[in-house]
């Protein structure tokens, strides 16, 4: 699988930022059905790093490649990642690294056997790190609030909510409730620049999923979005990947 790729361009998929970029292309494709976005996403996925180096946040989007192409090598990569022991998230942002992928696996390939475990992981993070007085999460044990880490957590939540079958309502709803509480706290706290685009993205997704009130939250997202010019991450040494 990896051997088939052009090794000179291998490298996508080793960081969370890579995952965020490809998720954006996939979202644009789904909204517009524009073939260009689909191809961009597939091209990036084709240039995936080796499974050993792959960030599991990126792995979530291997399912897109599998669904779009039907090629079994993508499934093989997914199964290989699943077979690696995955550690439970410790810090808030860790949720983005593995939980949407695990939910995707449960929903698409594992007959929903352990959806409850994925939801429990989110609940555990929320209960352990949420500061009720402040209304926001700490980034980790003994750490302060971080808008950036909270943004990753919110993206993880909406991605997982999107994947979760609503007929497993108690699980779906548990994730929605955590997202709502997180969103209220973050907006009350004020959002640092480095987190604005990601939080705005999560709000757009949440509005699209129908889990938050667009009247209340869309203006906030639009304002955050307007204030940011997003700079996509590049591969090291690849000058043509500037965005």
């Amino acid at each position, binding site marked *: 699988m990896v051997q088939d790729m052009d090794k000179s361009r291998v490298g996508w998929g080793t960081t969370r930022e890579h995952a965020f970029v490809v998720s954006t292309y996939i979202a644009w494709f789904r909204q517009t059905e524009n073939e260009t976005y689909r191809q961009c996403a597939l091209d990036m996925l084709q240039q995936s790093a080796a499974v050993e180096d792959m960030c599991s946040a990126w792995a979530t989007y291997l399912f897109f490649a599998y669904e779009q192409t039907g090629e079994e090598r993508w499934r093989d990569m997914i199964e290989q990642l699943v077979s690696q022991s995955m550690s439970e998230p410790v810090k808030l942002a860790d949720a983005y690294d593995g939980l949407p992928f695990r939910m995707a696996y449960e929903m698409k390939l594992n*007959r*929903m*056997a*352990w*959806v*409850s475990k994925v939801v429990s992981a989110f609940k555990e993070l929320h209960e352990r790190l949420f500061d009720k007085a402040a209304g926001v999460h700490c980034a980790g044990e003994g750490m302060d609030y971080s808008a950036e880490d909270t943004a990753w957590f919110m993206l993880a939540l909406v991605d997982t909510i999107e994947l979760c*079958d*609503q*007929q*497993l*309502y*108690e699980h779906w*709803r548990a994730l929605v409730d955590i997202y*709502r509480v997180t969103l*209220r706290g973050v907006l009350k706290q004020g959002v640092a620049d480095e987190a604005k685009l990601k939080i705005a993205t999560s709000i757009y997704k949440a509005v699209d999923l129908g889990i938050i*009130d667009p009247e209340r939250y869309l203006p906030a997202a639009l304002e955050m979005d307007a204030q940011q010019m997003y700079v996509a991450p590049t591969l090291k040494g690849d000058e043509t990947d500037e965005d």
Partner: protein
Amino acid sequence: MKIEKLFVSSRSVTFQLEDGGLYAANKRYQLVLNGEDAGIANTVVTSLFDLWPDTKYHLQAYDGECLLAECDFRTEEESFTMNVRQFGAVGDGEHDDTAAIQAAINCCPKKGRVLVPAGEYRVKPLLLKSHIRLELQKDAVLQLERDRNLFPILPGMIQSTDEEKDFNLGTWEGNPLDMFGSLLTGVDVKDIVIYGEGVADGMAQESDWWVNHRVKRGAWRPRLLYLCRCKDVTVQGVTFRNSPAWNLHPYFSQNLKFLNISVQAPANSPNTDGFDPESCKGILVAGAHFSLGDDCIAIKAGKLYMGATYATPCEDIEIVHCLMENGHGGVTAGSEMAGGVKHVRVRDCLMRNTDRGLRVKTRRGRGKNGVIDDIVFDHVEMDRVGTPFVVNCLYYCDPDGHTEYVQSLEPQPVDDRTPYVGNIAFRHVNATEVCCAGYFLGLPEQPIHKVTMEHVNISCARAAKPMQPAMADCVPKCVYKGIVASDVRKLVLKDVMITGYEGERLETRNVEVIEE
């Protein structure tokens, strides 16, 4: 013999002739109303229509020349009649009569009648109003629109403006999910009577509702009658047929009567339960006839989220003198029962050609509020019912139904997700031409508390086809089986006769006490 009045409206009456019959009366009785011939009563529960409001009536029942019973009643007052034709309804089966009929409903004053005379009325979902009487006269047919793109959607949950509360409108299989509006929908309404010899037709056979029925397309499928948080509603005499999904679905409602209704769907139609009260209190179903593609009556109380959040059982239910045919189950409790199902009496009923007779189904994950208790079946006849008695705590429903968590035969921790089955009793039941006598499957960590069978006769069919008596991964197809019980605290069998079985009359595993 006596005549017992069950319900009197402004234009109709339902009464019961107790002559020992179950659904059909033991004889045909000539009825005389105020001295005039009023037809024949051949069912125990019978209705008369086309009466006059605010009028005193004297009803007599004759067997030949012999007067057997009589009673007096007075019909209710009626304020006005809104004839839908006057509102512009055409009734030709083509014209969209939704606006006209909805206008008639909305404009109807208190205690007024919305009259739908004979004709075929093509309608999109209609919304009911409090304090009205909706009459579907003989040969009046409400036909549900076939194109789902023209249907309103009832959202599952809407968050309050202060984000503190939820407002629940739609529901699907025990979860608060978006659903299409039903043919007749009531939301937070009360004091309604829907009656007559007319028909509410879902027209599902002419649409795509039964195609890919487990896939949500736009929203989940509508019912024929959906009552959400309603009170004091009576449905009398109407025929319901060809529903897109469940037929009659009262939801978080109270004090309801369903009298002499007929509910029909093709035997192979998917998921067309007849009557599904969900988290309701105080229900009488009398003289109803069900012939369907799924459970005839399924008593429900939501799935885990609704059970845990609202903890509203479905309770105080009486089902009498009914006929259930051709469905999966005659009377079922579950599988959505997370709020609990309690105090159910099924009496003097006849079941024919259903897969199962009296069926309790639940599973891990329904929650600790999912208590099924005090369910009694008394004087029930079953003919060609595959397995008359089933209590199944390993039911493989829902997307995760076949997972290890749901299907494991090893004891799991008893926690907030574990349901409980209490006391179930079957008395004076005759079941002929069966495949398997009974299947009671508890949870190893939370056994069924007590099953009582008294004065029960079961005879196996000579040429029965194997069937899976309980839908659980551990239950194979079988035939000529006696009673199978596992994980039951107490099994009481008094005067229980089983004939035609092969092997053991009683197969048990982890049954603590057996009393015979």
